[in-house]
Structures are given as structure tokens and as C-alpha cells.
């Protein structure tokens, strides 16, 4: 089934990974297969399994784990609308509704001509330009974002552009306003701003800023050249440690300290850049990769030098196709210049960077799950200890750092520790890209020092509440996983300690603002939809608990809630958090727990309004199970007692009617009931 050229393409992908680790190429190879066939046919999976030297079931397990891999064909244009909370707050529901009307299909369906398929999607990292849709062009496997689809007219323009065939002339994001002539031209970077001057986003918006010449013209790669020639790895680690950079992915663990955990004298070591930015409300890494990829690459060179790794992987979420192309081009440019590859910058150092696309699994943002995924398996988290720094990718010492953390390394090494520590607070030094989404006038990303207050961010940069008659009700300070703050906590400074003191965590600095026009019941329901969808299924509490909570919330929303469901949810949530295998379990219920604690009144009112009689659902009648009896049971057969020990060969006749009929007559083997 796989053609020669596909096999060659897959072999080239396999060659990108270390010897004996070719299984890592499974996701890229499945993208090749899906591009050719529109889905991943079982026969092709089998042939791929042969190429990778694994069992076909292992390929099947991977295909069904990742959202972006399909077991049956989607339309030529696969439209996926983000309906997660930040988009929901900005009208994703209406956007979806318009699309359904215009295309004449429901979500989850395909138009009869096979041109369009429509689906819900979880957060796509466009929270600042919501509502939005991601479109996959089947025949090429390319993906483009279409954003700010606020009105029915916008949706019409979007569909008209798709039908015109000009929609994929570029892969940079598209908005209706940015392309009034419907030529498919790009809209440029989404809304950004913040302090002056900016560092992490200094070069965003600069024409050609993603090019190597432009980056070098701004002084790029000089730091890397200098450090590689003049410093030792330990000095870099020490400096990063002194700078106090804390991980920007969510946990906030000090980057330099993490680097220090690598055991001495164990090689090879790997650097994995976590670009699987999937936390709803977070869209900061995307802008770095799309508009200043060389900043990241220089950071990778510095970091890999520090931990003495010769291979780095950028694990980028599959949906960030444009960022993927920009990174790939940038790496090629850097390789051509000798900044990557063998003997980089004329030193004896080598560094190879592989950009590895994920395929739609939030769980793969967790560092051990990411490594498992990168090794070519389903993205399940692994036991810790051993921690990745000791035993990570391919069982070797591995540092997993977030994109923004790595970008910070570039600036620390360029400007020095003192300079860096002048920003932010003692415990949360440096600047941060804050993602602002939800019900504000100017959602977007803003680079500001740690310690800026929520009020400054929301009012000075975000322009205050979206609608003047709907005041702010709740704020999620660090991505959807984090506990919700109430409006009266708006003066909390955005640094790790202050947010923690306020009862939440800074997380990935994705600030989601919720106004009075929106129901917290809905927010809770949509949040659990997301975690049910994204739970990897490895451990019991998370797998079963998220689904159970989702069902309860959907029932409440549908007007079947009972007040005692609130206690039940609290009980379930309490037995997920801290009990699950990885932090996903905590992330799944923190929002709900804080929501129930702080906005309980809304839930109570909702239930009393929609279900005044408290007529709870009856326990459904359990299905009657009928075993598939393919043969009569042997259980009822008569039990004649043995007639004692035969002391010699016995010749007495047994009457024929006493001889039991054989209970297992040979029958035709029933056809296997395989799907």
C-alpha cells in the first residue's frame, strides 16, 4: 500500500532519530500516510509497523491516541472550531452555529461532496484572536488558522475564501479584517504589546524578522558565538542558576537547578524543548516560534552547550503547523551558516535540532508523557523518579524546557544576570509574556515584568471588560488548569508567590477573564469537557473521574441537577486531585473546585431555577446482560458419582442410556466477531 516514494520519505524521517530509535518517527510517518490517503488505513499501519519493526497493534494504539490522526477520511478541508473556554467566552458557539448553518451539516459530520468536515476542537492557542477555526488541507496535510470569526459575515468570508482555493497561499494566520479582498493574504502577528523596550517579543512584527539576516542584524547569534568560544558549560549553568529563571511551562521550577540534576559522565544527553503549548488560555510560545524562531534556536544552542547535549528536539504541537514551517526554515538557515550541525561556530561542538510534531494530545505537554510520545508511543506519563534529568529520552539524561524558558536563556546570557534580575521580583525574576484572553477589550499577549498586577494587565493593556455593562466576575490567572480568582482579587501582582498566596498558581501566565454575562456553570462544564477529552486514560481517578464529573455537569446544565450533586462533585474532585498518576488530575479539577467554592451560589441558583422540584434522575435500569452463548453450558450436566477405585479392569456393561451424551459436539467455529 505504501508507495516507494512514501517509503523513502518515511525512511528519511526515521533517519532523523538516533540509531535504534527509529520508532520515534511514528508520528511524522503517520502524517505522511494521512496526507496520502486522507486517513491512516489499517493496511498502511501494518506496513509502517513492519518498517519500524514493531507490532501493528502498537501503531494502532498510537493512531487512536492522537486527535489529529484519523481512522477514516475527513473532508478535503477539515474545519475544526475551538470551543474551549477562552473561545467560548468570545462567541465560539455562535461561530460554530454559523458554520453549521452555512455548510448544512452538524459538527462531527462531513458535507456530502466530501469537501468540508466540521468538528469541535480543544484550545488551539489562539485565545487572543478568538473565535477561530483551524483548517487542514487534506491533500497537502497543511494547516492554517482562520481567526477572529466574530460574525456570520466573517464566517461567510472565511468559507468563500476556502472555496476560492486561495486559502492556502500562505500558512500565516488569516483574519477577515486583514484580508478585505479575500486574496488569502496573511494578517501578521496577533495583538501584542507590553513594556518598552521588550525583549522576548522585541522582534515580533518586524518585516522579515523570522529570517536569519534580520536576526543577525539585530545582534543575534553573537551571544552564542561568544559563549561557545569563551565559556565552559558549568559557567553557563551557574549563570542561568543565578539568574533565577523559572520554568515558563507551568510548574515554575528553576531552570538552572533542573540543569544541575544531570548526572556527571552520562552521555549522550538530550535537550527537549517543550513547544506543546496546549494549556487553554496560553498562546505565547506560538508567537516566538512564528515570528522570532532564531531567538529560540540561539537559546537552544546555549542550553544544549550548557548541558552538553548534541541533539535537541523541539516537540511542537501538531496544530502549530505554521510555527513548524518557520522553525524548520530557520534551522535550515542556521545549518547553512554553520550555527547548527558539526563544529558549530568553528568550535568542536555539534548540535542537531529535530523539530518533532505532536498530533493533538494535551497530555503530551507533561514532560514524561512528552518523552514517551517522542519515543513513538502513546503519550502516557511515566513514573518519577527517575526524573528526566537522570533518565529521560531513550533512558538518557534529558532536560525538558519550555520555549519561553529557553528564550529567556538567550537574554540572560546576552545581558547578564544583574540586568535580568532588575525585572520582576526577588523570587520571580525577569519578564514574562502574559497571555490575556476572555472578556476584555484587547485580548493579546503582553510582555511585562513579573509582579505587574492583574488590574494593570487587564485595564492598562487589555482595555478593561469587554462590555461596559458586564463587569469582571472571575479571573483564571495561569491557564485553565489553575484555580479561579474572584474579581476582588484583581490587585494581586502576577508573580509566583503572590498568585500562590491568593490561592492559585501563575502556571503558564494565561490570564482568562470571565465577565458577569457568562455562567460559571457553563465555564465548569466546558472545562470538564476539555479534561475528559484530554485525559490520557492511564490512571483510574483521572480517567473515570473526569468523565463522571462531565456527565454530572452536563446533566446540571440540561436542567436535571440536584443540589446534592454539588457535594458529589466535591467528593469526586477531592479524590482525583493528589491521587492521580500525574499533575493532570490536579489540573482537571482545581478549576472546578475553586469554582464550586467561590461561585457556589450560581450553581445553586441554576439548579433551583432549572429543576425546582429537585427531581433527580432515577438510577437508570441496568442493562440486561445476555451472554453470547455459542455452546450449551456444561454446568447442568448430571453428576454421576464415580463408582469407586477400579481395582481391576472392569468389564461390567454400562447401559447405553446411562452413558452421557458428549457435551461438546464438534461444531463449526463461529465466525470471529471482529469489527
Amino acid at each position, binding site marked *: 500500500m505504501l508507495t516507494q516514494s512514501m517509503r523513502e520519505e518515511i525512511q528519511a524521517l526515521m533517519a532523523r532519530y538516533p540509531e535504534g530509535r527509529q520508532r520515534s518517527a511514528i508520528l511524522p510517518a503517520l502524517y505522511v500516510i494521512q496526507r496520502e490517503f486522507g486517513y491512516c488505513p489499517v493496511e498502511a499501519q501494518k506496513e509502517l509497523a513492519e518498517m519500524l519493526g514493531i507490532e501493528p497493534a502498537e501503531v*494502532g494504539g498510537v493512531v487512536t491516541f492522537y486527535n489529529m490522526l484519523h481512522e477514516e477520511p475527513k473532508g478535503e478541508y477539515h474545519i475544526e472550531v475551538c470551543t474551549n473556554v477562552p473561545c467560548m467566552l468570545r462567541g465560539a458557539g455562535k461561530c460554530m452555529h454559523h458554520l453549521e448553518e452555512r455548510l448544512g451539516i452538524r459538527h462531527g459530520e462531513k458535507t456530502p461532496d466530501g469537501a468540508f468536515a466540521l468538528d469541535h476542537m480543544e484550545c488551539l492557542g489562539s485565545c487572543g484572536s478568538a473565535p477561530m477555526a483551524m483548517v487542514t488541507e487534506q491533500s497537502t496535510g497543511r494547516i492554517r488558522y482562520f481567526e477572529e470569526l466574530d460574525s456570520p459575515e466573517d464566517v461567510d468570508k472565511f468559507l468563500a475564501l476556502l472555496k476560492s482555493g486561495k486559502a492556502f497561499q500562505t500558512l500565516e494566520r488569516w483574519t477577515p479584517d486583514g484580508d478585505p479582498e479575500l486574496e488569502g493574504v496573511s494578517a501578521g502577528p496577533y495583538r501584542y504589546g507590553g513594556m518598552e523596550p521588550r525583549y522576548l517579543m522585541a522582534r515580533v512584527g518586524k518585516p522579515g524578522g523570522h529570517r536569519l539576516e534580520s536576526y543577525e542584524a539585530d545582534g543575534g547569534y553573537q551571544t552564542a558565538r561568544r559563549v561557545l568560544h569563551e565559556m565552559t558549560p558549568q559557567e553557563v549553568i551557574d549563570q542561568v542558576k543565578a539568574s533565577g529563571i523559572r520554568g515558563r511551562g507551568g510548574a515554575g521550577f528553576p531552570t538552572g537547578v533542573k540543569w544541575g540534576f544531570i548526572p556527571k559522565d552520562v552521555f549522550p544527553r538530550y535537550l527537549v524543548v517543550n513547544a506543546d503549548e496546549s494549556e487553554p488560555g496560553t498562546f505565547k510560545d506560538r508567537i516566538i516560534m512564528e515570528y522570532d524562531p532564531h531567538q529560540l534556536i540561539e537559546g537552544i544552542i546555549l542550553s544544549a552547550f550548557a548541558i552538553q547535549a548534541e541533539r535537541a528536539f523541539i516537540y511542537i504541537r501538531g496544530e502549530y503547523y505554521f510555527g513548524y514551517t518557520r522553525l524548520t526554515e530557520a534551522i535550515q538557515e542556521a545549518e547553512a551558516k554553520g550555527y547548527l550541525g558539526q563544529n558549530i561556530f568553528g568550535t568542536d561542538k555539534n548540535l542537531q535540532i529535530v523539530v518533532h510534531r505532536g498530533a493533538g494530545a494535551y497530555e503530551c505537554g507533561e514532560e514524561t508523557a512528552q518523552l514517551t510520545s517522542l519515543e513513538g508511543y502513546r503519550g502516557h506519563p511515566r513514573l518519577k523518579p527517575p526524573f528526566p534529568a537522570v533518565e529521560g529520552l531513550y533512558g538518557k539524561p534529558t532536560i525538558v524546557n519550555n520555549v519561553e524558558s529557553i528564550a529567556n536563556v538567550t537574554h540572560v546570557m546576552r545581558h547578564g544576570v544583574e540586568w535580568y534580575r532588575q525585572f520582576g521580583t526577588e523570587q520571580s525574576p525577569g519578564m514574562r509574556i502574559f497571555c490575556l484572553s476572555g472578556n476584555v477589550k484587547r485580548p493579546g499577549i503582553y510582555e511585562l515584568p513579573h509582579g505587574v498586577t492583574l488590574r494593570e494587565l487587564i485595564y492598562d493593556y487589555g482595555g478593561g471588560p469587554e462590555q461596559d455593562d458586564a463587569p469582571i466576575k472571575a479571573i483564571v490567572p495561569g491557564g485553565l488548569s489553575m484555580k479561579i480568582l474572584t474579581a476582588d482579587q484583581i490587585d494581586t501582582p502576577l508573580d509566583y508567590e503572590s498568585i500562590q498566596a491568593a490561592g492559585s498558581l501563575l502556571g503558564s501566565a494565561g490570564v482568562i477573564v470571565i465577565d458577569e454575562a457568562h455562567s460559571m456553570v457553563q465555564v465548569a462544564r466546558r472545562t470538564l469537557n476539555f479534561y475528559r477529552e484530554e485525559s490520557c486514560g492511564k490512571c483510574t*481517578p483521572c480517567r473515570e473521574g473526569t468523565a463522571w464529573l462531565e456527565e454530572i455537569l452536563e446533566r446540571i446544565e440540561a436542567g436535571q441537577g440536584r443540589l446534592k450533586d454539588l457535594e458529589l462533585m466535591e467528593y469526586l474532585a477531592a479524590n482525583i486531585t493528589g491521587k492521580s498518576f500525574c499533575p493532570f488530575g490536579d489540573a482537571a479539577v482545581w478549576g472546578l473546585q475553586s469554582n464550586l467554592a467561590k461561585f457556589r451560589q450560581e450553581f445553586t441558583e441554576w439548579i433551583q431555577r432549572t429543576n425546582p422540584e429537585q427531581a433527580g434522575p432515577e438510577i437508570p435500569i441496568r442493562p440486561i446482560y445476555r451472554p453470547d452463548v455459542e455452546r450449551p453450558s456444561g454446568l447442568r450436566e448430571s453428576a454421576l458419582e*464415580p463408582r469407586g477405585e477400579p481395582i481391576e479392569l472392569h468389564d461390567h456393561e454400562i447401559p447405553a442410556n*446411562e452413558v452421557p451424551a458428549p457435551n461438546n459436539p464438534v461444531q463449526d467455529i463461529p465466525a470471529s466477531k471482529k469489527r
Partner: protein
Amino acid sequence: MADQATADRVTLTINGREVSVPAGTLLVDAAATVNIEIPIFCSHPKLDPVGCCRMCMVEVETPRGPRLMTACTTPVQPNMVVHTDTEQVRSVQEANLAFILANHPLDCPICDKGGECPLQDQTLRFGPGISLLVEPKRHKQKHYLLSDTIVLDQERCILCWRCIRYLEEWEDKPQIQLFERGADTVIDVQDGQVLDAKTSGNIIDICPVGALTNRVARFSYRPWQVEHTPSICDHCSLGCNLRMDSRTHRLRRIVGRENMQVNDQWICDKGRFAHAWVNHPERLREPLLRKNGELVPVPWREALEFVAEALQRIAQEAGPQAVGAIGSPKLSNESNYALQRLFRGVIGTNNVDHRDGGDVAALPTGLPALAHVMKPQYGPDPKVDTVFLFGLDPSEELPLLDVHLKRAVRRAGMKLIIAHPRRIELTRYQGPYLGYEPGTEVALLNGLARAVLEAGAPLPRQAQAHADRLREWVADADEAMMADLCRVDPAAVQEAARLLAESENALILYGPMVARGKQGPDVRQALINLALLTGHEEGLAYLGLEANSQGCRDVGLLPDRLPGHVPLEDAQAVQRLERLWQCKLPTEPGLTYSQMLDQAGGGVRALYVMGADPASERPSWAENLEQLELLVVQDLFLTETARRAHVVLPAVSWAEQEGTFTNLERRVQRAPRAVRDPHTKAAPDWMILDHLAMHLDVDWPFADERGITAEISRAAPIYQGLDWDALGDQGRQWDASLARPKLAFGPARQRAVPADPERPFVLVTGTVLYDGGALVSLTEELQQFAFGSKAVLHPQDAQRLGIDEGEAITVASPEGSLALTATLQEQVKPGTIWIPESLPGAPVGALLNGVYPVRVNVAKSGA
């Protein structure tokens, strides 16, 4: 306060009790040592920890207060303080069971696992008591076939990963995987693929719920109603320990039983599922005597009188040498011992043998010990660092040895050297593979010896004196001969020689395939040379493949050996046996199995065949058997041989009589009776022979099988002390040093390999697990796995001859021809054709005539 933990022991406190365990022990196991039960599902002592079910949460005191941890993934630390019974732990256990049960179908009344189900037990002890769920339950696939033998119920599955991990960690065939994710996660096989790992049934035993059930046994037992009989498997020479569950005189199911010296706790699928034959309606139920050309039922007395009279008459008329007895390596020591005692002591002939008995160049002592190749989860590293498999295919022939070897290769870095004309499954592991041309075995072994000598590494002391002579004997086995005659890569030969020479403790194992026939003694000598040269003479072993191949030899079912591997010339031993048996023993060596059958109807006029079916093996033997004056067949079924018999005596199976079997590492193990059918006249083998002896006017002293077991321990010195009670449930090995021959260097000559342009292919035979034998063919669930009447060719050869997959072909040798279906596999060496033994309706013996190698011609049928 106890002293601080020593280097290898750790002391901690669990529920206020001080516990001292080896470092590295997991909390769950540490608690078990003081009878504190921590509930588990995913944790299993034979599998790597995964920590996914979250059932085993316990409280561990930390400087920051008590912390919940999974006891199945946390190793003990010195001075750790652990609580398993706090309020918090109890509420977590309740909640976790509530999660597990939320979508469980609770169909316990009709679940096979009910009554022996950890989920039921844990719910009883640790569960919440009530359900809080009011939502509709999730539905998934029920009674869904993973294969013809294993049924999956996805609704009952709690996703503990045990089955997945077994197939990955032990079988190295991850054919079951998780599919989908989150709440939709299920275990499944890939679409269009079937679970065909040869030990797949073990996942049923370790499933902690009723998700995986045994299709052969399903709905036919309740666990509390069956009788458990600890026994052993009778399918191959590994002797896996198993348990037979029976009720109302029927064998209901077979499950694995732990024996850490033999099979860990695993058994293969043939052993587990292929038992329908025990209670099969086609079983013989009464004696048959040929009258007017028809076999008709007669009373026992009449049948036995007829046999006794005829045997006596023929032995008198033509001499005892005209009478022969064939026993069976599928039957117990007791049955075979009684047979050879009857024919040696009463008839007076040494014509006693079994298939692959006197015809193969064996060595008497088998494997040093299976434990030496095992890599148990929490055990010592295997002693053996290198295994050289010569003419053996453990994946098909000895599935549990295959599992042990894979585990040792993957977890302990054991090296594998494989010499086999076919690329057997184990060649997927790194290591030299010598795919030699059939018939060039001696040359290959000489080539290995030459490579060892040429490498110039220091030789073992006892080999140094012989180095020059050996160098001369193997001088011609140079690289050119390896490449041209054996058609193997000389570099692989050198690599194999290097590994053997460097190994501290290697096993050199060979099987009947290379030890049969005229070249057998030369192969054995070449192997002895190689083993002595590399210092591995104690690791050199012949492995018989049948359940009691070793036992048959031990109890003297050989034409030239008395019980205990004693040569006929050993006057002292003969005297001792004559005293024991109260008779005069013949001194002339007897005929081997194939000689008896070749001469049947000629020099041999009467044959007593117990548990063997030579007629289906070779058409020429079937014809010979028809020429006999007397053919007595004692068997379970009306076999091809029985159809030609004058008298057919119905026997009962290993499950219905007691007996001991000796496995390939000389472990004598008990197989007690598990079922007894009161409706049959069939009788245990020993009892038939005992009564026959009575009709021959000899009174044997046996009251039951155990009496024979006791006599064997007196008749065969190597079995001294091994009576029924001494063997226990785990068996005992006899001491190899009692029977180990003194190995000596000697020349081994490669015979000329015949060329025949008319017949361009060389025939390769061998054994497959799912062959056409009665054990498999009477188990309907195994039919899809059965090999069928197939011949396997290399695709290149097939292309050259224009043969497609599945096409009908004719394979012809000078002896005869066979009609078969062609199958194409890369694993078969070009220029060879592979036809396993005992395929349904296609006896590969039709092409053999005792000559090796056999050249054949292959053509499309009708062409």
C-alpha cells in the same frame, strides 16, 4: 531501635510494626511480609510496576506531613514510616473503587471470574458499599474475541495493563495495546490482526477481573465447584507446572501453576487450551478384537487372553527377537517402565524403543537446569550467558523455554547463537545466525571448532593436549567450506566461535532434528569436540521434545540401555535387575524404533505399540504394519496404527491416571489423576500391562502407579529416593553426575552431500506447535492456528517456479510424493522447502527413507 539498615536490608515501620526487607523491595511487598494487605490491581509480582490503578495508595510520613504514595511503585527507604489504615487511606480506597466500579457492568453472576475475582474481593474488603452513580453506564464491546481462544469483555476491563505488560515484557509481542484515550480507552488487538503469541493465555490467569476469559472453558465451571489438581503439562519436554480443574469427571480448564525452577507461573497456549481430547467422544471406551476383518468390542479378558496367547506363540516359534514393543515419550515413566519390563523380563527381548529413542545420538543428562536460563523478576541473574541453539526452534517446540530465553536476552544481556536451516523466530534478537544447508551440520560444527582454534585464544587445559589432533580433523572446514558447502557467512561463524570461546557459562543445545539417522553420531561427536574446546562440556545437552523424552531414556525404553542408562553389558546391573524382576534378561541389543518398523512383517512378526502412531508417520511403515502376525495397539483413539491392529486396548490419558514425567532438565514431576470417567472400560496403561503380565503367568507386585514409581527408584540408581511422596508438588531433579558420560575428543566426519539436479530442493522438517496431531485437531478453538497441510518456500524460489501463495503443489522424493499448499516465507532458506512433521493428511515421512538430507522436487500440481 534497630541498627541502621545494613547495605542490603532496609528497616522501616508499617502501621507501627517494624519491618526489615531487602533494599529495593516495594512497599506493597514489604507490607505483605507482615501480613498487611494493600489492595492492588495493576501491580503484579511478575510484571514491572506501572502505578496506573491507584488502588494501593498509602500514607508515608514526610517532613512536610503525611503524603499519599502508591505502594506498588515506591521502594522502601530506611526509617520510612508508612500507614495503610488511616482514615485518609481508607477513604481513598473507597473512592478509587467507586471510580473503578462506576462503569463496571457488575455482571458477576454470569462472569467466569466470579468467585475468584480480585475485584470482588477488594470491593468486599475495601469498597464503598453503595454506588453514588446515577448516570448511565458507558458501554463497550462485550464477548469480543481477541483470538479463537481468548474472549475480551471491554466493559469489565479496568485497564490495569497486566495483559499488555505480559505480552511486552515476557512474550516480546505487544499484540494487545490500549486504543483510544481517556474514558474511551480500551484494550484491543489491531484491526485484522489476531492475538497469536504462543503463550497468550497467561493473560487470562493474571487478569484481575473477568475481562479476559478462556473460551475453551467458558461457562462450564464455577470456581468454587471445581476440584483443583496440581499437575504438569504433557505437551513438551519443559514440563510446565499447571493446575487441572475438573468437575463431574470432566477436565474443565487448565491454568498455570508456579514453579520457579521450571515455568515461573506461565504455560503455553497448547498446554492451556488443547485438552478437549481428554473428554472427547471419540475416545476408545472398550477393547477391540479383529474378527472376520472387523474390529469388534470384546471383554477385557478375551482381548488380553488373545494377546498373551499370540505373543507367547510367536516368541516360541520365531524367537523373542521377532517380538517388539514401542512405547511413547508422551506417556509416564511408569507406563514406559512397565512396558520395557514386560518385554525384557517376560518375553525376553530388547526390542523396546520409542520414537527418537535409539535412533538419535542423544546425550543422557539433558539441560543442567532451567533456572540457569530464567530471569525472574526478583531473582538471581541467569547463570548462563550464552546459548547456542543447534537445530532447535524453541518458539515452536518448547514455548516456555522460548519465553525464558527472550527474557534472558532482553533483561540480562544473554547472547544467542542460532544454527538452523530456517530463520526461526528467535533470530530476531541480535546474535550470529548460521542458516546452514541441511546435511552440512558436521561441517558447520567443525568450522566452528576451526574458528575457535584459529582465533588463538587460550584453550581450556584439558583441550590443549588434543588441539593438534583436532586441528587436523577440522582442517578442511575452512571459510570456503563454510561459504560454499554450508552456505553460511564465515564472519558469522567466527563471531559465534568468539562468543562461545569468551563465554563463562554457555549452553550448547541440540535437538532430534540434527541427531537422527546415520549422521547423528558424527554430529554428536562434533558437538562434543566444540564443547570440550570451549570448556562448555557440562552445558552440552540433547533436548528431546516430548513430555517424557528424558524419562523414556531414564527408565530404559531403549534397545541398548537398561533403566538408569545402564548398558546391557553391565553384568552387575543386569544381575541386580534380574533379582528385582525375578527373571532372566536378554543380552543381545534390540532393534530401534525405526528398525522395528522397517522390519515389521519381516524379521519382526509381532509388535506391541503403546501410545504411538507410526502408521501415520510413513506410508511404508503403515504397509509394513499390515504384514505383521500380531499388532497390538494400546491408545486413546483409533489411530491410523490402531486401525491396522489385531487388538486395540483402550487406555486413559495422563489426566486420568497417575504418573511421573521427567523433563528436559531431569526434573521428575508428578502428574496425579485429575479426572476419572466411570463410564468407560478404558484403563490406565500400567494396569493393562499388569493384567497382560498376569495372562502371561507373571505376577507383578504393583497395587497402583505409585508402586511402580517406587520400583523405578530401585531399578534405576539415578532415581534413588525419588518416590511419589518425595517428589512433592514441585518435582525433584536427579543428579546429572550419576549418568554423565566422559566426553572425549574424536574425529567427526562430514558425509558427502548428495547432488541431484532433478531434485533441486532440500527438505527441512521440524516441529510446529499447532500441528495436525489429535491434541490440536480435537480442540476446535485451535483450528485457526493449526499449521495445515502446507509446505513453505522462499519467495524467490516460488517466483522462479511461478508458484503463488496458497497454490497447490506437489513435492516428490524418490520415496514418494505429497500434495500440499504452498506458503511463502522469507525465513525459509532459498533452495530448501520446509514441511513440518505430523501435518494433517500430509505425513512428511512419505518423502523420507531414513536418508538425510532428502532432496525433493517441487512443482505446481497438475503442471
